[in-house]
């Protein structure tokens, strides 16, 4: 197979970037998309050119490291699939593709296809947890969890934090990501004591970063490699609204969860 790639090359955060055209002649349909880039990079190194920088690690679709836009679509054309699990047999011989990094103000480009997603960690820092120190837990079966709730919590907890939802959203909103964590913890009995404070703090943290707001477009759900439903955004809004009416923790109280 032959594939033509137009790849975003950018030397550093403050450097200008541009698309560079590469022709890949040695593409095999059993290759993964990233293996095609590996082969291209080997060729670039042999020509003493800098290889294309892209993030990846597990290559099993679970670590959330990889991801870029293929022809404007986050993680490419296969639904429910990260780019590391996307294989070349789904492309046509001679196809021309454009690869770009996630595009969002909250995710500054560091180099080529690599962006800085630390804003997502900061959202989790603002209450995306249950406060329990090691050693103080009751017996695991002391708190029963209805199976339906556990299953629904798991659906939300599957988020791999790749950032595709932000990249796909015309507003660059991180609502699917934030909603997934608020839903996961809010659906479990263990998450109830901090539920209200968590919703307020996490939503505020999201708003403090350079993410946009959710306007229910649904692009996030369409590209999510773990098929997380936008129902989690509705849950987030409900928890936020309810918390905003029922309690207004002082900044210090809300921050005192740690």
């Amino acid at each position: 197979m032959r594939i033509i790639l137009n790849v975003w090359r950018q030397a550093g955060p403050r450097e200008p970037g541009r698309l560079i055209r590469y022709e890949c002649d040695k593409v095999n349909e059993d290759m993964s998309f990233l293996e095609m880039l590996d082969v291209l990079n080997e060729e670039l190194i042999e020509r003493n050119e800098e290889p294309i920088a892209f993030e990846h690690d597990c290559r099993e679709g679970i670590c959330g490291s990889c991801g870029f836009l293929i022809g404007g679509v986050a993680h490419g054309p296969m639904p429910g699939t990260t780019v590391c699990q996307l294989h070349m047999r789904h492309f046509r011989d001679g196809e021309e593709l454009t690869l770009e990094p996630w595009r969002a103000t909250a995710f500054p480009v560091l180099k080529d296809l690599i962006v800085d997603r630390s804003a997502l960690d900061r959202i989790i820092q603002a209450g995306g947890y249950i406060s329990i120190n090691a050693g103080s837990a009751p017996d695991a079966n002391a708190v029963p969890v209805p199976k339906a709730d556990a299953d629904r919590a798991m659906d939300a907890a599957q988020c791999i934090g790749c950032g595709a939802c932000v990249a796909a959203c015309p507003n660059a909103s991180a609502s699917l990501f934030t909603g997934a964590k608020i839903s996961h913890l809010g659906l479990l009995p263990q998450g109830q004591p901090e539920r209200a404070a968590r919703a307020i703090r996490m939503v505020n943290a999201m708003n403090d970063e350079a993410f946009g707001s959710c306007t229910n477009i649904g692009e996030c759900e369409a590209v999510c490699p773990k098929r997380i439903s936008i129902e989690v955004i509705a849950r987030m809004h409900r928890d936020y609204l309810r918390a905003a009416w029922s309690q207004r923790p002082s900044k210090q109280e809300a921050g005192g969860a740690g």
Partner: protein
Amino acid sequence: MRLDSRVPSGPIEKKWDNCRFEMKLVNPANKRKFTVIVVGTGLAGGSAAATLAELGYNVLCFCHHDSPRRAHSIAAQGGINAAKNYQNDGDSIYRLFYDTVKGGDFRAREANVYRLAQISVNIIDQCAAQGVPFAREYGGTLANRSFGGAQVSRTFYARGQTGQQLLLGAYQALERQVDAGRVRMMPRHEMLDLIVVNGQARGIVTRDMVSGAIAAHVADAVVLATGGYGNVFYLSTNAKNSNCTAIWRAYKHGAAFGNPCFTQIHPTCIPVSGEYQSKLTLMSESLRNDGRIWVPAAKGDKRKPAAIPEAERDYYLERRYPSFGNLVPRDVASRAAKAVCDEGRGVGETGLGVYLDFSDAIRRLGRQVIAERYGNLFEMYERITGESPYEVPMRIFPAIHYTMGGLWVDYRLMSTIPGLFVIGEANFSDHGANRLGASALMQGLADGYFILPYTVGDYLANTKLEKISADHAEARGRVEQVTGFGRRLLSIRGRRTVDSIHRELGKLMWEHCGMERRQAGLEHAIGRIAELREEFWKNVNVVGPGEGINQSLEKAGRLADFLELGELMCRDALERRESCGGHFRAEWQTAEGEALRDDENFAHVAAWLYQGEGRAPARLTEPLSFEYVHPAQRSYK
């Protein structure tokens, strides 16, 4: 030097209690005066960093990913063992201990394994309280499944993503402490050296992977939780960035390396499809419950599987092991697959694969039942290979999956360098010569949540530490050394890519130090690895600058260390003149081709001590005694 395992006295069920009582405590007001460095944020590192911070220590935590949530623990599928006996099926701490010692083929320290089994129950409590969405029964209690040949159901799971959910639990606990200001998290930092002052581990040198800056960080103790070294084989189920650099640089400062040749090979992985292959993907071993493994009976039979009549197929596991059949342990199944492929009966384009066939199960149970049990895995297989396991048999082949070896640690998880603690897969661990399924997650979290936080405190309370800063002469010296190392790599500008040399190393290791090892092969590999190392330092091409992101430079540094570690693994395999667990020396096997242990001469841990460049490392031994579980020959006939 003598290895002191510091195993406490008393009966086995009291040892950990006795140890905890004997250990000195650090007064709560004093804890905040100490700083601990934790390198790595997987299950072991993430849980350790969070717990140390909860106790009040200052924690400096490093990972090479963009976020601590990406560590490779996240890819663990199956589950986590715990001796809860929720199923009332006769499980107990003692039974989990017994299974683990036996499964490790009698090459693990009994006291450590017992403690691991004891703590397993606390881990499940802790994780459930953190909100890990474990599978539940309709009544709301936790569900279990059986795993890896155990006769009880003791494995807790969260769909096929148990590692992910446990890791996110630890990650969230860690981020809570970042929020509280007790952990300073340094993502995108790679540890490149250890700082040892007056014989004590006092800090590390890192490269900032965004700016390229090399810097020293000092502390009162250092914890390495940097995972396993399976990527020495180039192709493995490990994540692409998993590497041995942190433990290897510690080894070169005098931390003994325990049982480096103990590696685990997993029998059910998707076979290699071509030279470009970058990694191997595991298919859960649960598939062997309903799939039947076979190859054509005749050599070189290239017909499509459906065209091969029943009489011309060889269900070799069912034939060789009538009582266990397709469910023999991982090491046995892997070796049998290699044997039939060596005979020229392997399937697929490369001839390195065997069929895992579900057609009988589909006929017997219906497609619906099989889809319910294995739907996710079938989907993943089809995504990668383009073939549907409902229609054609899966092709599978063994792959490197886990390394039982690692830095030697005593009962308190401290290496031979005072103040350097090693946890999780990075240490030589509690799994002996073979790890049982669903035990890696258990060990990582036991170390991080419940063992290390006590033992670090004892070390700090008992040790006089000189006040030092990152300006200390030793720290500056190490920074200079690391800077020079990077410059040297960038200045070679040869003709070979890092990956091409890494692939060659991997093939050598797989051929001679993989599933089957022989004296001549190991000696050959040791020679070839030395040549390859020379080739690397003369002819590698690392393109790009030292400043800023440079993934080739990162890979080159890691490969330089793999090229040294590979040799040590071969040496260890050569010296261990017996077969045990995952270590199979062709010269030591029973008449039926099974592993033949030599308990008289090799019931010990081999720990290798670095003696300087160009000098052979010293082999120390820690004798293992089995007072509770008596060594016996494993049989699956």
